[in-house]
């Protein structure tokens, strides 16, 4: 990568489990060009200054969700944040909050992946569909019901923005609950009852206290806080309905 014309100081959180007791910040001087993202700054450090630095990345265009990190304490995608916006000040890059640090900027995502699998993030049709039946058809209105919530890229910025998840990781968390809402709102799906047992629990929608910072930091405007909190009403109705109709699915 060609060197740029201006130099910015990047303070990067380092943690090498084989030698460091706890994380610390290491400062690098990065010569950058106006169009460089924070991710490019990190790549420059790895290529030219310190090959031991670890971080995740892939697509460089805000669609893979790999390069989520804390940039000046705000959860952001490294590829979507530009160094010029911080220059001439220095900037601080850390691993995503609320996740254990595996190494440097790489966090342990096992909890997120397990929870993602738990909500059955796929269509569960009422009856298995045969090939000759053709495709599932939907009206634009039916699509609109879930489209916004389907654009999640699993970057986990919302988890780094959610103090409830940080304080108690039993909470399913914003992104995955938004995805649960996405499948439950899909006209082709019939798996609602299977998913809502978790959704209606304290680990589900009720673990959210409407801090709503998740929706602010989401790079795809999914608005997880909206997905979660609009379910509380249905959840409350479901709770009271069981007194009238005990045959329901509520437990």
């Amino acid at each position, binding site marked *: 990568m060609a060197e740029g014309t201006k130099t910015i100081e990047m303070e990067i959180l380092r943690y090498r*489990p084989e030698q460091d007791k*706890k994380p610390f910040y290491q400062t690098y001087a990065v010569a950058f060009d106006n169009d460089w993202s924070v991710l490019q700054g990190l790549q420059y450090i790895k290529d030219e200054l310190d090959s031991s630095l670890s971080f995740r990345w892939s697509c460089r265009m805000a669609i893979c969700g790999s390069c989520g990190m804390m940039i000046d*304490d*705000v959860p952001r995608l490294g590829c979507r944040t530009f160094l010029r916006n911080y220059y001439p000040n220095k900037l601080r890059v850390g691993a995503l*909050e609320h996740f254990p*640090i595996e190494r440097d900027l790489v966090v342990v995502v096992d909890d997120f992946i397990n929870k993602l699998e738990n909500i059955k993030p796929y269509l569960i049709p009422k009856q298995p569909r045969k090939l000759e039946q053709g495709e599932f058809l939907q009206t634009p209105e039916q699509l609109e019901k879930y489209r916004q919530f389907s654009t999640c890229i699993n970057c986990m910025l919302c988890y780094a923005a959610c103090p409830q998840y940080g304080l108690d990781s039993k909470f399913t968390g914003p992104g995955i609950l938004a995805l649960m809402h996405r499948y439950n709102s899909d006209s082709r799906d019939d798996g609602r009852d299977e998913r809502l047992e978790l959704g209606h629990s304290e680990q589900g929608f009720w673990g959210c206290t409407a801090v709503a*910072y998740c929706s602010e930091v989401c790079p795809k405007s999914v608005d997880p806080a909206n997905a979660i909190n*609009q379910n509380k009403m249905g959840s409350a109705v479901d709770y009271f309905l069981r007194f009238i109709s005990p045959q329901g699915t509520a437990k």
Partner: protein
Amino acid sequence: MSAPMDKRRPYTRSMAGWWKRDPYFIRYLAMEATSVLVAVYALILLIGLFRLSQGELAYNGWLGALKSPLSIGLHVLILLVFIYHTWSWFKVMPKTLPAFYLGGAKVRQSVITWAGVVVALVLNLLVLFILAGVKP
């Protein structure tokens, strides 16, 4: 051959002082804290109702206590807190509603918030108007 030693040692960061990390969290906690003074005001009104049930003398005592400088100061503080509480409450409101459409366009969340604020304002003015018409 022995099993390879696991070099993994994930580091979990402390959540102590988490609310100081971001101004957003401070605003969130301020929003939550306003509920305390809202409850205090409800308590003041309830005490008034209780004193009313005890007769005219008791009720006048309560009214007198409201006129003390300490009470007036507290009420000014409660008024300011109520204004922030109203604003933050309606700011959260669109998060609790499913999207709805007017004339084919999705209603923006800021419109919902401001609609709530305007309704609150109109209702408060209405109450003030009615109170102004009541002869003491």
